[in-house]
Structure formats: structure tokens, C-alpha cells
């Protein structure tokens, strides 16, 4: 069965791509992903803020308490060649490129315009086949207008595209007033692909300790509804490849997303739960499903259920929500 797809100018054997996660921290895992049939791998993100914070902390700890007391003018050896910048990440990219044949897509989260472009260049030089921009921040300033936020996104894409020649995808938040417009602006700015959606780590409250804790929850299949809707809406409306991410756990999830119009489907929580080898299981089940339903290839059903192609285009629009509630109430299950 031909499951091939194209994403960011690359032909991929299947749409199954592990998304940015801690799994790609480890080169052995990346090799295992390839062995399990991953068509490409999105590396874990390089966070500029993290690098800057590490750098500040290192500086603090190397200077704190020094040059004060005659017997202990310093507390650490004076080491050269400290990997305080993106070197570790870049080395990992280079090592992965040397170790696997599948495309390696880097992921970058910048915090300054200079950081976005500088690190993007270095990532390209390290050998990444493509770059996913993980644009993520929470605008909390009431004075900041929505247009400013949107302009910043577009500016980042433009600047990065100005310094790299590898394809660039943008991993997006759904929280825009006019998401379709935003998607089109990003494509105009140079994005070759859109990754829908970024799952934000939402804080939790520990009622015993009264601490705010970054309680990371893995996704459930329910999470795929939002990207499913927007991929279906955007399919054919923007000139960019579409990657679905969030809540894709089963073969049927992949099939739904491709039907909605996804070029690739990204896997994370399911691999963290079931192991990297589960990619092979999903692939087999897709093949079985396609055979059982007498499809010739995966490509055949791509976009078949997007808003433009589906039998009921209104189903993807807001009005449907009210009808959904009234007709499907009995089917609501506890997730």
C-alpha cells in the first residue's frame, strides 16, 4: 500500500512523523524511530529563552561568592569551551543527520528576533532538512493589541525565511481572532507548512502546597478535534503543506486527519505512552484499514473530507456547534 506523502518539499514514505518531544533528545531514540518506520522526525525544540536563562545561571553560579574571601577567590575551575549556546542542539542535529536516512526537521523557539534568525542559520548549517518555528508566547500585556501580536509572528517568519533556504514550517497556536487569515499571512510571509496546533502546557494548581505547577498532561484523542476542524477548513485555502498534531493516537486518527487534508500527521503522546515502536503498529493498521476499505493509496483520501470536499461544509463552522449539542447530547462521553 502506498502511504507516501509530500511535506515541505520532501517525499515521505508515510505521513507518520514523530513531533517535537523529549524523545528526540536521545540519538538512540531517533534511530529507533527510523527503524519503526517514522517518515521523518521533528527534533525537540531549541529554546532561545532556555539558552539565555542557562547562560545567566551559569554566569551567576560561576561568579557568586567569588573574589570576596582570600582563601576561596573562586569556587570552580576555569573551564574553556563550555557549551552554553546552541552547540549541544546543533551537534545533536548533525549527529542525527549522520545516523539516520529520514529527514530531520529542527524545531526552534526564539525569544528575540536576533535569536530566531541566528539560531535558524546555525540549524541550517548543522544539516537540518527543514525547520519548524515553534512560535510560542502568551501575550499578557493588556496594552498589546492583537495586530501587534500577529505582526510579530509574521515578522519572525519573514526574517527567518530571509536567512535560510531550507523549508520553514510554522507551528501555531489556535488562539487568533481570525485564524484563517493569520494562516494565510504566515504563508505569504514564507511558511511552506503549517503545523496545527501547538499544545500549550497549561499550569495547574496544587491545592495542598498552594503552588502553581507545570502539570504536563499527555494528549487524548479528543484533542485532535480542533486541528481536524482547521485543517479541513484550510485545505485548499492556503498554499502550504498542513501537518496535524495533537491527539493522534490511532490509525483511524491518522486517516481522519488525512481525509481532512493533512499532509503529515505528527505523533507524540502515543509514543511517550506506548513507545517508539508503536509507529509500526499504526502504519500496519492504516494499511489494513485502507485495504479493508478498498483504497488504492493514502493519497486517494487526502482532503476528501475537507470543508471544500465534504458533503456538509457547514459542519466545520460554528453554527454546527449548537446543532451538535442538541443532537448529540446523549453521546457525550466522559473523556
Amino acid at each position, binding site marked *: 500500500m502506498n502511504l507516501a506523502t509530500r511535506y515541505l518539499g520532501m517525499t515521505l514514505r508515510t505521513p507518520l512523523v514523530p513531533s517535537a518531544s523529549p524523545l528526540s533528545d536521545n540519538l538512540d531514540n531517533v534511530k529507533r524511530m527510523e527503524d519503526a518506520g517514522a517518515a521523518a522526525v521533528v527534533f525537540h525544540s531549541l529554546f532561545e529563552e532556555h*539558552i*539565555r536563562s*542557562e*547562560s*545567566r*545561571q*551559569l*554566569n*551567576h*553560579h*560561576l*561568579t*557568586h*561568592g*567569588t*573574589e*570576596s*574571601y*582570600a*582563601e*576561596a*577567590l*573562586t*569556587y*570552580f*575551575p*576555569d*573551564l*574553556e*569551551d*563550555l*557549551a*552554553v*549556546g546552541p552547540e*549541544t542542539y546543533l*551537534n545533536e542535529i548533525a549527529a542525527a543527520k549522520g545516523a539516520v536516512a529520514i529527514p530531520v526537521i529542527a524545531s526552534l523557539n526564539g525569544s528575540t528576533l536576533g535569536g530566531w534568525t541566528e539560531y535558524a542559520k546555525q540549524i541550517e548549517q548543522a544539516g537540518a532538512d527543514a525547520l519548524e518555528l515553534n512560535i510560542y508566547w502568551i501575550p499578557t500585556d493588556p496594552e498589546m493589541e492583537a495586530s501587534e501580536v500577529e505582526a510579530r509572528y509574521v515578522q519572525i517568519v519573514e526574517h527567518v525565511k530571509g536567512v535560510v533556504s531550507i523549508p520553514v514550517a510554522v507551528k501555531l497556536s489556535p488562539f487568533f481572532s481570525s485564524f484563517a487569515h493569520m494562516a494565510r499571512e504566515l504563508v505569504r510571509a514564507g511558511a511552506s507548512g503549517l503545523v496545527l496546533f501547538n499544545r500549550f502546557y497549561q499550569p495547574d494548581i496544587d491545592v495542598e502546597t*498552594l503552588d502553581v505547577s507545570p502539570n504536563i498532561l499527555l494528549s487524548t484523542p479528543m484533542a485532535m478535534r480542533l486541528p481536524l476542524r482547521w485543517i479541513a477548513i484550510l485545505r485548499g485555502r492556503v498554499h502550504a503543506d498542513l501537518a496535524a498534531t495533537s491527539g493522534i493516537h490511532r490509525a483511524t486518527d491518522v486517516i481522519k486527519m488525512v481525509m481532512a487534508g493533512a499532509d503529515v500527521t505528527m505523533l507524540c503522546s502515543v509514543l511517550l505512552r506506548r513507545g517508539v515502536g508503536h509507529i509500526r503498529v499504526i502504519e500496519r493498521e492504516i494499511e489494513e484499514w485502507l485495504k479493508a476499505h478498498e483504497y488504492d493509496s493514502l493519497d486517494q483520501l487526502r482532503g476528501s473530507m475537507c470543508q471544500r470536499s465534504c458533503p456538509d461544509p457547514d459542519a466545520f463552522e460554528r453554527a454546527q456547534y449548537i446543532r451538535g449539542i442538541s443532537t448529540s447530547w446523549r453521546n457525550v462521553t466522559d473523556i
Partner: protein
Amino acid sequence: MKTKEFEMIDGNEAAARVAYQLNEVIAIYPITPASPMGEWADAWAAAGLKNLWGTVPAVIEMQSEAGAAGAIHGALQTGALSTTFTASQGLLLMLPNMYKIAGELTPFVLHVAARSLAAQALSIFGDHSDVMAARATGFACLCAASVQEAQDFTLIAHTATLKSRIPFLFFFDGFRTSHEIAKIEPLAQETIRAMIDEERVREHRARALSPDHPVIRGTAQNPDVYFQARETVNRFYEVCPGIVQRAMDDFAELTGRQYHLFDYHGAKDAERVIVLMGSGCEAAHETVDYLNAHGDKVGVLKVRLFRPFDVDAFVEALPASVKSIAVLDRTKEPGSAGEPLYLDCVTALQETAHASADLRIVGGRYGLSSKEFTPAMIKGTFDNLKETASKNHFTIGIQDDVTNTSLEYDPSFSIEPDDVFRAVFYGLGSDGTVGANKDSIKIIGENTDNYAQAYFVYDSKKAGAMTISHLRFGPRPVRSTYLVSKANFVGCHQSEFLDRYSVFDQLMPGGTFLLNTAIGAEELWSNLPESAQRQLEEKRPRFFVIDAHKVARQCGMGGRINTIMQTCFFAISGVLPREQAIAAIKESIRKTYGKKGTEIVQMNLNAVDHTLSNLSEVQIPDRVSPQPQVHETPPSEQSTFLRDVLGKILAGRGDEIPVSAMPVDGTFPTGTSRLEKRNLAQEVPVWEEDLCIQCGKCVLVCPHAVIRSKVYDPALLNLAPSSFKSREARLPEWKGLNYTLQVAVEDCTGCAICVDVCPVRSKSEARLKAINMHTQLELRESERKNWDFFLSIPDRERRQLSFASVRESQVAQPLFEFSGACAGCGETPYLKLLTQLFGDRLLIANATGCSSIYGGNLPTTPYAAGTDGCGPAWSNSLFEDAAEFGLGFRVSLDKQREFAEELLQRLGGRLPENIVTEILAADQRDAAGVFAQRQRVVDLKRELQRLEGDEARQLLSLADTLVRKSVWIVGGDGWGYDIGYGGLDHVLASGRNVKVLLLDTEVYSNTGGQCSKSTPLGAVAKFASAGKRTPKKDLGLISMSYGNIYVASVAMGAKDEHTLKSFLEAEAYNGPALIIAYSHCIAHGINMTTGMQNQKAAVMSGQWLLYRYNPEQAAKGETPLHVDSAAPKLPVEEYFNLENRFNLLSKSRPADAKRLFQEAQKQVDARWQLYQQLAKSGSSSKESGKP
């Protein structure tokens, strides 16, 4: 001719560079001020730097200097070119091997940063006491006087030792030379190569022990031949000076720098000559020039090769015109006919028939423990030589009003030349002033033709440490080996220093004064202290101000204002054109901070750019505005000693104290840290009395004992200040009493560790705890009154207290308070707890280290007595012998108590029967029992006063020993795991009732973070730059193997009740006890505010186990080992990620880090399993039993 190249380095690095090039085996051990030499060697080896022969020297850290000497001896005997570095007590520990190495005619250079020896007190500072203690070993002794010479003589010493076969002790003055940064001409590798005779190297190797050509050495000789054999070396010593001189001549040919065994400088027809060695030669050199230029005929003879003392060379070096000589020794040899150099000089003149009535020779002492040695003192010494009856065996630089040895001199005499720019900077350790000045002097040295010098005076305290930087630069090599007394520029980097210190003393009229202050230029004048206004009005400098902290905040630099103040200095001092200076600063920033990431580079570059627009000049008005004086010194009602000795030291005027005021035997009163009121903290904790659950955790963890709790009769509140806080005590046992948590805001360091451990949060605003940080200044006045009132509330008597819980134990008065330890120190809470529990009967034998420095560094001590007058008695013997020292306490006290009991029985018939029987049968296991016994002894003494006879008088002098005394041996892991381990093992194995508190920071904290055997696998430390490759020693397990030692492993931050229980059990156990206490440390690279969380994480990961091994349990048939921590649930790597000591390995050697961290996890898992098995099996390895 080739253009000269220069570098700005200090004496330690200058010597270590050459030593590293010329050796194959380097054995190291940390000791101030020589540690940096070993640190350099380790860092270079870790970085793969090769020596002259293209191989990386093997660098190995030993367990002590004795160990280093032994290892070197072995390495030399098997043919390796080998070296080591040491000072002071370390050199003493090497003495036995030095005799051997010399006796076996082994080429070797021992590098020494000469330092005082511990006598009436320890001192880390420089003099020649250590070298003089080694002068009889048979080592040649070569002395450098400057940083340039420290480098040059290292090469000369290595050259000469290979040729002569005599081992060399090469030394230079600790701190003055070892830590002075100077502009020197570095040695090219070809120069080093040209000086070393390869044939001599091969000869050294050929003499090596080898089974291929077997011989034996180290034999025992008998009366028949030992003497003759000892005399066989004479000819080697006879030719040694000639070899050294030839090496100096060869060196001169290669470098143009000519040295002699004795270098005379001065008038050819000088009549008065000073003879000395070390850094003082430089000051004498420039003073001689000055005096001769002003009509005198004087000279200085610089001694380079002290041993073998070349009598002829000495005499020949003296000008024929000399009529009087003063030989200055930087050492003290009590009871001698004269100090060593003096005696040698006298002998030389006598033996060469130069001694005559026309040539007077006198000896004197100067500069002990880095005491300043200034041109004024040198002139005073020359003046003494003018006298017909010159004072002999004099001292210079102090006032000896007891035996009147001191020479008079005019301290105002100065020879500072106009063409040398001099600057003094007052800063805090934490603000980066020293680092900035090191950088500045390098910029000047490297960007101009000027010669330059930088020397730094540091604090004796770690929290809130003040630093004073002394910088000079000018057209000639700077020989001023003394502090700047007249400065063109003074920078005061903290405005509060204006109140506390005489920062204007050095400022020359018309100079430049730079002040960092939050007050703007226009409002500043009226806000300056009156004394500052007067000084400024009198000296009328150009006066500049900047709010550097504001700029630092804007640039994200926190409290570090180094770059900002450095930029100001260059902008207003005019030492370089401003643009050139700014460019040089920026280049230096890129070089210095580049390896820490672009973030840090950019942050500092921003700071430079933001500085100049914030810098303003202040016009000094003609009138002084009267201001209230806020400077506080210890109150006048204190004893004369506190006022005239400690008070003066506190005020920075210790140099003025005469001999008569000092204790003759190093004995000082306790309870003096409370006099200081250092007001270090910007923010201090404030108690929220309504939220507080009175758990006592904040009191327990406070490293400086500034948070106290008391329970008391509420009637006492009648006299309380209005802002004094109080609430009903919550504990049922305290029903009817009130509870107060009071903060000594003037003693607080602001570490906020108390807030971090507070378990309570406000229900309506969760960010608030039951103790929160607030600005200190607003609270200072009210809380000072509240603190005074709090102190007036009677402490509950120890016998009334239950120590069953942390909450109850923490109302006990701590008898360890306000130490100078780092803010947030992880060690001091344990010591404080120790004094709370057993302080009234406590003797502490303290190993040298952090705990001896914050415990006993003058001027004040944190140990204090309770209201009953009882409190810890404390002493430090050495680094290596604390266990034996403490055992001595125990044996002595036990013997005296035994004798007292014997006397009591002998006198029984003459004393009331109940006193005798009750004292002999007393149960003193708890505080109440001790209190009762103390009362009985009071009664006994009263009865004894009435009795006649020797035995009654004997018993009177011994009666106090009948009250239980607790002997605790305190030290760090450098002591317990390494240098003192042999003694510790023996003492624990003795079965005697001594307790050991091992404050385990897993690193040599006091000397700056060198690796110990306690350092965990994978941690980066000095001497383990590439990460520790071996696991931490399990000292607890080793100790448990004896079966009769109580052993506990505790971590207060993980389980405080466990710590408390362990202390109580250890004390109750009638035998040896060892508590290994995890102590977070600034050397771990952690946030010290959350240090207790690091302790918790260490335990959660299983990296640190909590357990108690109680032999008494075994005696009862129960399992002696209780593992008190839960099974590890945090991956070791996650714990490692919290600490820079591990992160550094990930950043410098990621692959090694990954491997070592995985190995660490395996070891943690295996150790956990082992301990589980031991706990189940009922015994570690042996059945318990007392010996």
C-alpha cells in the same frame, strides 16, 4: 632586538606555568595561598596542555601534603620529573620526606607561597615562618621577590636542581607576590628548553629504581656509618651556589635579566645596608633609590639563594664602605639568639673576618602575616643604623610596648612618585569590584607601555565581604610591594561604606573620587555623612557619581556593577583616551564572558553603553552641612579589651593595637559576634504572627541564628515596644505562655532560606508565607528595639526544655550566632543546633576549614555563652588532627573526672555524705541531670572551701570535671575523608565517648572548591576539572563496620526531625558517634536561598541516604541500622540538573557527563539495595559490642 612581550599575571600563575612545563608528575593538595598553582596544573592537564617534552603531565590530588610529598618522593625515585606546590602547615607536613629527598640527592623543585605558621593563631597570610622551619632539611632555598622573579626563578631552580642534584625549595611571599598581578615578560618555550640540560634529565632517569638494574635505597644505617654517610653530600652543597649562579648567568644571556645569589642595589659607597629576602626587597629597592636621591648613602642586599648560604658571595656583594647592616627576617624564632637570616649573616661576617668594631650588624623582624612593609618602615630601619647604639633584635611595623623591641618610624613618610597613577577601590565581594579591577589593570598593562600592578585586600568574612583593590601603573616596573596610601583615584562602589570606613584616607588633594549612589548629583551633598563632606571639602577632588545599581538592573546584571564602575573609571580617570578605553573594555568583555554565552556578553556590552549617560559630576560646595553621625562602634560600657582590641579591629584599625593589648596565648572571649551589627541585608524576614504555626523550622535553618523564638509569661509584655509581636503559644505544653519569633535584622544576611522552608501560606494570598522578606532599612530602628526587648525576656532554662521535636527544641538559646559564613550556609544550622542541644556542656575540637574560619576568625567569634555563663569552649588545633585533638579533650576530661571522683571518695568522711553519694551516682544523661549535677558541684565547692589540705585544694580545682562534658569534633569532608581520615578512624575505633559532626559539603569549601574523596562521581571541582571519575567514599559504611560506633547520615533540608533525633541519639550513646551532615554549599553552584530544597532532592534521588546505625539496638537484639529515607524516586540526573557542579560537566564534556551520570544512577541504585539488605540483615558486618 626582538620587541619585548608582556603579560599581566600573578605570581602563582607565573611559577606554575614554568613548573608545569618542566615536570611529568605533579602531586597536589590545596592550601592557601599556594592552591592556585595546583589548580592551574590540574586545569591545564585536563585541557590536554603538554609540557616541554610534548606530554601531558600526570596530575594527582593527594589526601594531604604529607601524601603529596610521599607521592613525589616515590615519583622521583622511579625517575619522573616531579613537583608539588604548598605553603605553611602543608610544608610542615612535607618535612620528613624533604629530609629523605635531600638525603638521596634528588633533583626536585618544591614551590612554596610562603605563609605564616599556626602558633597562637592560624594565619593564611605571608611571611617566611614556614620556609624557615624547612631550612634544615637539606633543600636549597631560593627566594623570588616579585612576580617576574617568581617566573624566572622557577626556571633557574629547575635548571640548578638537575645540575646539582640538590632539591630546591623555591619560594615567594604568599599573597604579596603569589596574588599580586604584575606586568611581566613571559618566558618563551625556547628559553626554557635552552636552560634545561637534557643529559641531566637522562641522568635523573638513570638513577631511578628499576628491577632492570636493581638497587635498594632507604636503608637503615647504624652508629658505625650513618655519620659518615651524612657527610658524603658536602661537596654537592659546596658547588651548588656556583651552579645556581651559572644558571642565573645563562638565564641572563637568554633573557637579559641578570640575577645573582645576592643582589646588591644602592650606593656604591653606602654605609648602611639592609639585608632581606622576598617581596620586601622591592620596597627596599625603591626606598634606597629615593633616599640616595635625597642625599643618603644606603643600599639593600637582596638574598636570592638562602641555602646553601654562600658566605663568600654574601660578603663580596656588600659594599666595602658598609658600616652598619640590618638583617631583616620575616619570621619569628622565639628563644633564639637571632632569626635565621641574621644568624647566617653574622656567621658569614665572622668567618670571613669581616666582623669588627667598625661594622655593626643588627637583626630585626618585620612583616609577619603580611603585615605591611612600607618605605616608612624601611627608612625607620635605616635610621636605626645611624644610631651609634643601633637597636638589635628589633621589630619594625608594630608597637611593642612590652619588651620595647619596636623601632620608631614616621608613618607619613611616602615615596610614591608623581608619574605613577594610583587608584583604590572599595567594593563588596558580591558586586564584582575585584574582577573589574583585574580586568582594568590588564587593559592598561596590555594597551599601554605602562607597567602595572594590582593587589587586593579581602575580607575575613564570606557574607557581605568587603574588598579593597590597590592599582598602580607607571613608566617603570612597579616595585611598591605595599598598599596604596596616596591615591589619585578612589572609587567607592557602595555608598554605605562612607559611614563605616575611612574611604577618603588615601585620596590625594585634587584627585578623583567616584561614588556609586542611588541619590542623584543634585541632592547628594546634603545626604552625605558630615565626615565625608569634610573630607571632600578639604581635598576638593573631582567628584563623580553614578547609580550603578540602577544601570545594572536595567541591563539585567543584578547586583554586579563591575562593568559599570570599570567604565566610569576609564571615562573619568583619563588613563586611556576614552574611546580607546571603551573599545578595550568591550574587547575584554567579549574575551572574558564569551565562554559564558552571548547573553552575558551582550548584557555587559549594554552596561558599558548605558553607563556614560548616567555618570555625573558633582560640584563640591564650600560649606559642610552638619549631619548626625550614624557610625556605630561597640558601646563604651564594654570591657576595655572589647573596646581597645576587638573594637579597633572591627573599625579596621587593628594595625594600631600595641603588643601589650594582645592576649599572650591566643585566648579570646566568646560571644563577640553580636557586637558587629553589620546591617548586610537589603531585605530581612518579617514574622506574620497570625499565620505562623510556630513549627520552628525557620529558626532551625537560619544559618546565622538571627531568627529566634521564645515562650514566656505574657505579663512580660507590659514593657514591650509597641511594635513587638506576640501570640499565644500553640503547643499544649506551653499553655498560658506567649510565643514570639523575633528577627535580629541588623545581623541578618538576607539569605531568605527561612522563607523558603516556611511550610505555611496565606489562605487569601498564597504568595505570602508566615515569614516574608521586607526592606530592612524601614524596619531597622523598630526591630532594633524589639530585638533588645526580646533579649531581655528570660530564656527558658535548658532543663525545662523538651528536645523531642524541632518545634520544642527551637526555643533553646543558640550559642552560635551571627557567624561570617556565606549567606545561606548549609553547615552553620547544624552547629547552631548542636549548641542549642548541648551548648552548656560542650567542648569543640574544630578542624581547620570553613567551620574554623567562621568559628574563630578574629575579630569576633559566633560562639557564645548562655545567661548561666555556660557555653561552648572551642579550639582549633590543625587541619589534620581534629579527631586526635578532640580525643585528647576526652581522655583528659575523663582522667580528671576519675581523679576527682577518687578525691571525692578519699575526702568523703569530711564532706556531707549526700553530696558525695549524689555526685558519684548522678544520672547526667539529659539537661536536667546535668543541671542538677552542676548545682551539686556548686555545693561541693562551697564545702571544699572550708576544708584544709592538698587533697581538698586538688578537688576544688577539679570539681567542675564532675559535671558532664560533651566533646564534639567538628570538621569538613576535606578533613574527615582525606587529611584527617587516619586520625578520625583511630579515634572512632578507640571506643571513647567522643562525637564527630562531619559537615559534608563534598568539596574543600574553604580553599575554594577542590575535590575531596567525598565529592560525588561526575561533579566538577577544582582538581577534578574533568569531573570526578571515582565514587564518593562511603565513610558511614566504613565506620559502621566497627560495630560499636553510632553512625548517622542526616540532611536537615530533607527531614529535620531526623537530624534532631540523630543528634540526640549520638549524644546519648555512651561511645563514639559520627554524624555525617549533608551541607549544601556555595561551591555547589546552587541558589543558596533554596539550598534546603537541594538537600531534599539529594535525598529523594538516593544520592544522599538518611540513616542511623545505633549499636545499642544491636545489643538489644534489634537491627542497628535504620534507613530513614524513602526509596529513591527522583532520577539522579534530575537532582544533578539542580547544581552547577554537575551541569558544568554537561556543558564542558557532554559525552562524559552522560556516561558518568548513568554510572551515578547505577551506584545509587546499588547502594540503596545494599543498605536495604544491611538494614534487614540486622548488622552491617559485625555483631555489635563495646570493646
